[in-house]
């Protein structure tokens, strides 16, 4: 009897250990361990907005720091200009260059899945940063958590309008995983509120011009808009649309884009909240890459925390001396590289 109980306890304990590991989803990277210096390839979706420029500069900065320590000897970077077909070709090129590790920010989740899986099959570890593929076949996916970002933004809006009213959602580029994830996350929050009506869900392409055009049209169609959810700088376009129509700007959300922070600082009546999608994930991506090549275990999913900017702590983040294109979470060393002389 005692032996049986002991055996059962041991089996339960072992099961718990196994389950615990699966739950935290740590990846064993021993098979990728290699001696430095390494060759790293980064396939970038594009530099089509200033967030991406800051994000890539963070990444490059971390690569340069690693080069100084003798950990990295070669670094190849490709830019697909938002063209998934080109990006597939870019990844193939990097594989041919015999990289030890690939960092990829996918312009389209579906299109990039086969080639990333192929890289993994060939034994090249892949770190997905910022934009993911649609399967699970990579070592680590790292992002600033689009889902959390959108949820924090949407929850705040729900609170601002007391759970009742009309909401417009404008997100980024159709097909890009951050835009789609954020839109889905915010939609779920609003749909859970019976008193909230979603008037429209549009793609603003992370462009102020397009968002403004969309918002101007929506203002004509819907006389009563109580809240506007934007994941990013579409908020600037949306604000301009309300101002051009001589209407007060409803509660609105954005991210740490300096252009919005400056407008916010200069308008005491604006009711807004910004949640960051940290540009520093570029650097975190490189850190995880280095760990993988050293054979250290890494998480399968790594979420860089989102910072919340409110009217109260706005002064810590806004930089009136820097141009609109600055992102408040950029590391100071990287800020110096982006804006020399500041």
């Amino acid at each position, binding site marked *: 009897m005692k032996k049986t109980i002991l055996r059962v306890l041991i089996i339960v304990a072992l099961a718990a250990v196994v389950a615990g590991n699966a739950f935290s989803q740590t990846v064993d990277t021993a098979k990728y361990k290699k001696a430095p210096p390494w060759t790293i390839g980064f396939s970038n979706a594009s530099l*089509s*907005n200033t967030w991406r420029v800051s994000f890539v500069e963070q990444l490059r900065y971390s690569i340069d720091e690693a080069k100084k320590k003798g950990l990295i000897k070669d670094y190849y970077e490709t830019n697909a200009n938002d063209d998934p077909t080109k990006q597939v070709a870019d990844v193939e090129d990097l594989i041919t260059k015999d990289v030890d590790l690939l960092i990829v920010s996918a312009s389209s989740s579906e299109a990039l899945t086969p080639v990333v899986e192929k890289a993994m099959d060939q034994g090249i570890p892949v770190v997905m940063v910022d934009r993911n593929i649609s399967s699970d076949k990579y070592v680590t996916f790292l992002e600033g958590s689009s889902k959390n970002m959108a949820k924090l933004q949407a929850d705040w809006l729900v609170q601002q309008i007391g759970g009742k009213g009309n909401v417009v959602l404008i997100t980024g580029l*159709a097909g890009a995983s951050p835009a789609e994830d954020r839109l889905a996350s915010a939609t779920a929050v609003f749909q859970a509120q019976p008193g909230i009506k979603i008037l429209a869900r549009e793609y603003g392409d992370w462009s*102020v011009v397009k968002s403004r055009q969309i918002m101007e*049209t929506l203002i004509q*169609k819907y006389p009563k808009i109580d809240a506007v959810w934007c994941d990013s700088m579409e908020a600037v376009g949306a604000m301009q649309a309300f101002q051009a129509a001589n209407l007060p700007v409803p509660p609105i959300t954005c991210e740490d884009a300096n252009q919005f922070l400056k407008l916010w600082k200069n308008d005491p009546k604006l009711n807004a909240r910004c949640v960051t999608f940290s540009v520093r994930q570029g650097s975190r991506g490189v850190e995880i890459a280095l760990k993988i090549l050293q054979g250290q275990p890494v998480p399968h999913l790594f979420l860089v925390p989102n910072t919340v900017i409110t009217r109260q702590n706005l002064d810590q983040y806004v930089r009136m001396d820097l141009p609109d294109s600055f992102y408040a979470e950029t590391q100071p060393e990287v800020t110096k590289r*982006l804006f020399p002389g500041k």
Partner: protein
Amino acid sequence: MKLTAGYAWRKTAEQSAIFVILVILVVIAAVASPVFLKERNIYNVVLQASMLGIVATGQLFVILTGGIDLSVASVIAFMSILSAGLMNGRNELVYPVALACLGISLVIGLANGLLVTKLRIPAFIATLGMVLIVQGIRFIYSGGMPKGSIPDGLLFFGRASLLWIPLAVWICLAVGALSAVILQRMTLGRSIYAAGGNMRTAYMSGINTDRVQIIAYMLSSFWAGFTGLLLTGWVGMADNWLGRGYDLNSIAAVVIGGAVMTGGKGNVWGTLAGACMIALLFNFVVLLGLDADAQRIVRGLVIIGAVGLYVRMSARA
């Protein structure tokens, strides 16, 4: 061809087909969404149509010569970055910097023209290459992060109205009228049509086809640059990708308006009607509340349908 009354009637029908289609679309839009006819909505549509219309008018000159200018969007973005960076919020610099920017646009147009005429590079390739060259220059200048700011003088230019009609619309009408005069009444215009119709014959008849083409490309870049300044004033900030879509949309407007890609055929008012159609469609699909994918399908179908209808109407001519 006998100059009968029947022929004259058919020719008029062919030229007015696009306007008839535009009116039909306006009616459909008004019926499907009553908001469409609201004053402010028409204001918005017409403003967007005008900015596209100015670029499309420049594009028309190039397409009339049998060429194509894919670099217009890149030029617009370049204007945005340059004007913000150089003006840097100072009102007194608006005119000098604007003139400098327009000068740079002319240089880009000149480069396009020279590539096509002297180096005999096909226009598609030459202007496609120019897109990348201008993009590269833009990124080197800005480091990927646009700097500076737009002074009030330029903001005013992009946002002002005269008699409740946006300034951009007046400018577009003026550009249209000026271009129509050049094309219908001046030797340059006749030379452009001739060169586009048959380059060799035009050359043999003594027309300096190289000069005519270079002028066309310079005009296209000039109007693209001008629109870039207008758009920058409207948006109020530097944007590395301002003008996205203006390349294909300006070509579409020109072709919807009755031009043929081989050159020699086309007119200004048709082009402006084409620009109106494109702006109208963009507005209409948002008003209908369609989701993003349905929006694209509807826009594509309408453009194909409209041009198809137009081709059938003119085939009877």
